[in-house]
């Protein structure tokens, strides 16, 4: 499905990604971890076409993603910061994204799940951060995309919504989708992820299951394992 070949990106003299190389073939939840500035967001942005790589390629279903924007129909994206045009209503933004993507969407069950019915006619500028994040989640999950990219999905969510989001992610996984997730909350990663990519200074330091990472570092849990990598 997704092949990353020799991907390199630098901003000026700063090398953010260096010769990243991996493949994701089967469905599952893949966590991309790493300290601040290790290139996680840059990698996701390249995958989504927001950042243009210095060299290397990403192929989606055998096609180079730089050649066409059509592949993005298959990728759902939950951005880290939920900010929308202030004067549009929740209903309008849902229509807008569905309009732009030109594929079938099913927002109603998600609106009900997150209790957004009463907000549908409210302007986005008046919503709280947590409510905006819920709108953000609806916009991502209302399409049946085979790949879903979640960048810090839990930001600003209350515990009830967090539980709903987790079950939503698991449901999508059951459908055989590829879910890429970045998070600083290790308990969340431990709970959800099937496989971990650990980025360190722009390269993949470790790739494998959480168990393998724990064994490699002889740590009791993921948080300690990562702490051991960063401060040996």
């Amino acid at each position, binding site marked *: 499905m997704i092949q990353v070949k020799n991907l390199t990106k630098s901003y000026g003299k700063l090398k953010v990604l260096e010769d990243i190389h991996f493949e994701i073939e089967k469905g599952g939840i893949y966590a991309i971890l790493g300290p601040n500035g290790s290139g996680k967001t840059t990698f996701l942005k390249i995958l989504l*076409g927001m*950042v243009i790589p210095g060299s290397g390629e990403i192929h989606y279903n055998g096609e180079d993603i730089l050649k066409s*924007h059509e592949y*993005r129909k298959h990728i759902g994206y939950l951005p880290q*910061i*939920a900010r929308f*045009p202030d*004067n*549009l209503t929740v209903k309008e933004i849902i229509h807008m*994204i569905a309009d732009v993507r030109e594929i079938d969407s099913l927002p109603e069950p998600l609106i009900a799940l997150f209790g957004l019915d009463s907000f549908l006619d409210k302007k986005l500028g008046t919503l709280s951060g947590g409510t905006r994040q819920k709108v953000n989640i609806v916009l991502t999950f209302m399409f049946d995309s085979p790949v879903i990219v979640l960048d810090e999905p839990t930001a600003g969510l209350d515990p009830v919504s967090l539980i709903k989001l987790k079950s939503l992610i698991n449901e999508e996984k059951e459908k055989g989708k590829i879910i890429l997730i970045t998070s600083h909350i290790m308990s969340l990663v431990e709970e959800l992820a099937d496989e971990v990519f650990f980025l360190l200074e722009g390269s993949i330091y470790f790739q494998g299951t959480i168990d393998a990472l724990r064994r490699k570092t002889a740590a009791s849990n993921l948080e300690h394992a990562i702490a051991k990598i960063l401060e040996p």
Partner: protein
Amino acid sequence: MIKIFKYSFSDLMRSRWSFIYLAFYLVLGFVLLFLNNDLSKAVITLMNVIVVLTPMIGTIFGIMYFYNSREFTELLLAQPVRRSTIFLGQYLGISISLTLSLVLGLGIPFLAYGLFQSGEIANFLLLLISGAFLTFIFVALSICIALFNSNKIKGFGYAILMWLFFAVIYDGIILLSMMIFQDYPLDNFALVASFLNPIDLSRILVLLKLDISALLGYTGALFQRFFGTSLGLSVSLGLMLLWVIMPGVLMVRKSSKNDF
């Protein structure tokens, strides 16, 4: 592009600033007409306001909108649409909503005053057209500045400086160089210099139409002598169009290579 335009336009039309801008022109139009009691004088006064104000508002709105909607633009970039579609759609959204405020804000008082019964209708329309051109030009220029500067403060500073340059500094430089080189023939230089500033161009455009030679100034008089009134009008309109297209092309090209 139409879809992106539709939503950014309806977002902007409901923003408080659009209403304030509209209200300003409404007040200005009514005050000028009912205090002056003279349509043609009001058109000249308005021209002086429009050639300075529309570029400023276009610049500030353009740069503010771009920086404010950055995260949303990122979300749009992750959708299956071309980058040029997104930026052109947003550009049209800003420019057309500002132009609508201008047209409604001045149109309503002038219609109420009885514009259709006077011979000033063509002059008034040309005034609105040049205001629209200036809005499109300066919104495009400010979006270009924002695309080249990811730092908000820097981008904002450059945008204001750009406006100040075209509105004030440019004329000063031209005047100064004409004084220094007064022993040389300067007609061609002055003519070309006026091509390079959209604010000067729009002033010449309106004054040529109004046919008031006393207000034309040096470059305007040159324009009239060189092209004649009617050709002068088409030339200045054509140059204004070029001024819209150039930053538009730059915007599309830069946005296709940018990292967000």
